[in-house]
């Protein structure tokens, strides 16, 4: 009698357990068939590994594009988060799986910096192939509304005269504010007291509470506070101003020397192991390309403050190269990295032109 009741509870629990573990190993035993026929791809679930945690921008974008890609591919995508070590854990996991197109990496800009920061050996350009770069966002330099600095020049002038006195909130090694303030330090000869926080949310909180003097936020994260009058955005890191924050001048207005680094900013993309067979890559790229054309998805990107890119192949690789060389050399020039990007054959930005 008692056992019967318990059995009943177990019955209720089992489906829950199964759904929760659904993201398990589905990496294939498919290697037997050799290399000839990929036309049936996908024959099993595809694992989508998100390299950041639940609720972040990468997570939101990945989870919204996934069902659309499923429709195009005619197979299912099982999404899971493997966060940690600035996303390096997820990247390493995908790299370690067979290159059969059944494990995809949904990542952000971070792997571009792993090598120079010594976080991991993995790197987008040498270890993965881009399936699609979904979109790019922009960054802006913000201070709180009651701050005495009304323009970027004010802020820079003060910090050049009083090096180390202004506190700049960052989101840790290789994060957006870290690279951006390195950019400012390299070009404009300033020095900030950098204090790392855990991402955009805590940074916005710290700025609201007056704990830090300035920070660099994704425009999407800052925009609401600018509208409500809590923050002032002193500049957007772009060569023209953005619709989302029309009052904020582009950084090239006071400082044209930033032109060569642009476009630069955080991005989200989908990647496969570098040895993934070409036919599978083709199928993936076309499916992801078609999926992103969905109107509702475009709207979602817009809400998230992401500019749709939807690029793949050579174009995507060029984009990655440009982004990597800007960020890594920037960090190197300000002494933030011990290893030179040269060691990894990353060319300097200037040399490209």
């Amino acid at each position: 009698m008692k056992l019967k009741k318990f059995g009943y509870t177990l019955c209720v629990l089992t489906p829950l357990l199964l759904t929760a573990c659904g993201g398990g190993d589905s990496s294939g035993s498919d290697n037997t068939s050799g290399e000839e026929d990929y036309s049936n791809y996908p024959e099993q679930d595809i694992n989508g590994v998100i390299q950041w945690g639940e609720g972040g921008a990468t997570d939101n974008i990945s989870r919204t594009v996934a069902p659309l890609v499923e429709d195009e591919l005619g197979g299912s995508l099982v999404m899971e988060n493997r966060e940690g070590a600035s996303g390096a854990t997820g990247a390493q996991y995908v790299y370690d799986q067979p290159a059969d197109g059944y494990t995809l990496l949904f990542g952000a800009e971070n792997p571009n910096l792993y090598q120079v920061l010594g976080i991991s050996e993995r790197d987008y350009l040498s270890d993965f192939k881009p399936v699609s770069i979904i979109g790019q966002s922009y960054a802006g330099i913000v201070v709180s509304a009651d701050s005495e600095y009304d323009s970027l020049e004010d802020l820079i002038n003060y910090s050049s005269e009083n090096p180390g006195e202004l506190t700049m909130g960052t989101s840790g090694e290789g994060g957006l504010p870290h690279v951006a303030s390195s950019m400012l330090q390299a070009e404009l000869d300033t020095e900030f007291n950098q204090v790392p926080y855990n991402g955009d949310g805590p940074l916005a909180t710290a700025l609201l509470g007056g704990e830090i003097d300035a920070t660099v936020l994704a425009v999407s994260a800052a925009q609401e506070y600018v509208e409500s009058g809590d923050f002032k955005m002193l500049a957007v890191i772009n060569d023209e101003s953005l619709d989302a924050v029309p009052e904020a001048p582009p950084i090239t207005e006071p400082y044209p020397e930033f032109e060569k680094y642009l476009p630069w900013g955080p991005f989200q993309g989908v990647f496969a192991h570098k040895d993934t067979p070409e036919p599978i890559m083709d199928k993936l790229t076309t499916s992801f390309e078609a999926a992103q054309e969905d109107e509702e998805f475009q709207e979602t990107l817009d809400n998230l403050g992401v500019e749709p890119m939807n690029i793949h192949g050579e174009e995507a690789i060029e984009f990655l190269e440009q982004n990597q060389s800007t960020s890594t050399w920037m960090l190197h020039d300000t002494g933030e990295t011990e290893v030179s990007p040269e060691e990894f054959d990353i060319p300097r930005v200037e040399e490209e032109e």
Partner: protein
Amino acid sequence: MDILQQLLIPFTDLNLLFLVAAGTLAGIFIGAIPGLSVTMAVALLLSLTYSWEMLPALALMLGVYYGGVFGGSRAAILVNMPGSPSSVATSFDGFPLSQKGEAGLALTLTTIFSFVGGIIGVAVLATAAPIVASFAIEFTQRDYFLLAMLGLLLIGSLSQGSMAKGIFAAGAGIILGLVGMDSIGGGSRFTFGSLQLMNGIDFITAILGLFGMSEILYQLKSLNEKGERTSLKKMAIPPLRFIFKFLPLSLRVSIMGVLIGALPGAGGEIASLIAYDHAKRTTKKPDRPFGEGAYEGVIAPEAGNNSAIGGALIPLLTLGIPGDAVTAIFIGALFIHGLQPGPMLMEQSGDLFWMMVGSSVLANVFLLIFGLLVVTIFMRVVTIPKQILLPIIAVITVIGAYALNNSMTDVYWMLGFGIVGFFMKVHHFSVAPLVLGMILGPLIDTSFRRAYMTANDPGVFLAGFINSPISLILTLAFVFTLFSQTKTYQHLKNNITKKVKKQ
């Protein structure tokens, strides 16, 4: 009038009503299984509800949130394995209660006071959200440091027997908590070049191993002894006087819970620990000593962690800042459904705010109903023979550890903690301080360093502890708690009470 209408939307719309109910019920079961986290469940719902309207999606997610936080205490009470980090404190007195045959009573009491805590959380959310939000953003890194230090003083309450062993366990926990990539400097600590270790050690594997697996190993020792089977006492319904008796305590810890929950850097797990500590310090004559099945010891953490949900929603809805990991996913949901979470949210979509308040009330009502209904099913777990129960728990701990990150590494950690926990039990070390150290260690580490870096000068840094009102209060609380443990204080106190009596 508008507000009332919006508030009542979830009550009158059958569809929403059903979704909140289903969410709460599913949440209770997900929460009750260790390792299946509320965060994970809500994240799954995010893609599941992508094509839905916004209100139904949020109603379902809120239901799972409330149900999940509550459900964690079921496993903590019944099998001494906290289903979620915020129910660790519930196991301290919850499991002794069920060993004494009072599982039913413990389950019922925690259900009622979870409801009380949850409702207070919602009430504060509805009436004082802007005030609490401005308090929450005034809370600086220095204050987080002090709060975590206050939490660390709990070792005193948790280490049964030898204090030195408690401090040793907590120290070990802090060191284990530091393993991995340092989020401030970016360097690796104790990783020996391994990427798995770079990730850090998830403290949930420690909870599963130290509470779950080690308990199984420990009980194996006495498996063949013909001990008396735990009998169930009939009384599962608490007498009415209980409710009035514990109401003041639950009110106090609920207010603390809301405030801690509203802090963007602290959530239910810290709220429940602080609530437990508060109960232990303020209850003069508990029915039983704490740690041996005091009712106050299960009521306080449960009221505290459920009220923390209302608290966590406050910065989300007023400032667009997540109060914890689950509310971070809510931010994603709002974005996806076309809203901009931020300080303008209340003005631009006030209806959403009141709909969330309404759904929260509803989720609490369902939590009370389902919580009480399933008590009779859940309490039978205690009567299952160990030969059957222990293997089931063992399987659940393994699945739970694997499900955390879909990684075998976590399973190995869990098994390792199980073996360590077994020897700790054999040699009379309490395992709770170790978990406490793992939870609080990283917070102490990062908040202290951030506070120091922001001050940028030792003098300014130290002055901050006295200059800022919040810091001053926390500093005084810390010093007083330490002082109250000393003999001088006991001596002074006795002298004063004697004098008062003479007069």
